[in-house]
């Protein structure tokens, strides 16, 4: 599960729709150091496939993912 993932920064995208979660995540990942982890929270049902694609396109790493009660959590490690 996700309990042992430590986040260095948290980004809450609750209630936001495409493209804003991706835009905000792209900005937020640049504000942490390489190797650090960003925890992003979203409610957009498009977020899970979008964030998986975001990882493929940007090369950052998704270290954990959660889904409960319409809330999605993502933990991204900045790789570069």
């Amino acid at each position, binding site marked *: 599960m996700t309990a042992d993932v430590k986040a260095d920064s948290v980004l809450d995208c609750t*209630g*936001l*729709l*495409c*493209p*804003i979660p*991706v*835009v905000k*995540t*792209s*900005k937020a990942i640049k504000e942490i150091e390489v190797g650090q982890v960003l925890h992003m929270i979203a409610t957009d049902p498009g977020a899970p496939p979008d964030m998986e694609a*975001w990882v*493929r*396109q*940007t*090369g950052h790493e998704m270290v954990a993912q959660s889904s409960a009660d319409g809330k999605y959590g993502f933990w991204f490690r900045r*790789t*570069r």
Partner: protein
Amino acid sequence: MTAQINDPVLKPVEDAAPGAEAVPERKKLALVASKGGLDEVYPVLIMASTAGALGWDTQVFCTFYGLDIVNKKRRKKMKVSAVGNAASPPPINGIEMRVPAILGVLPGMSRVATWMMKKWMKDSNIPDLEDLYQICIESGVKFHACATTMGVMNVSQDDLVDEASCLGATAFLDFAAGADLALFV
């Protein structure tokens, strides 16, 4: 000598050394925006801002009515047409609205349709068109004004936002030919 530096064939082989950190290549998106309705420009800016956020080299060629995207005054006045859209009006809260198409031509209907779309966008937390445009600019998206359209519609460089560069179709196709993805809206 200059030509050699720019020649990709002469790149040192070490660039592709095995085991090197795999850095995704910067993709390119060529987007032609030919329409100027609020409902037609939203998809352009959503695609462009998303591609920009992914770090793609994103360039938008604004032609015909799409030129309004880079028009200082006209972008702020974009409307939704109340006629010609068979899907309009969409169901509200699941309730199908039965509005005869002919009512769309009545004075003020376009204003109503525009107001409704702006309200849905606001209620869904989607930025308004101005903010979305600014997000595109901040993400590095480049907008080009079609030179021919400027001539046909008598639009001068002064009417356009400073960041818009005036291009012909040839220059844009030159970029599009090397793009990974080209979209026409």
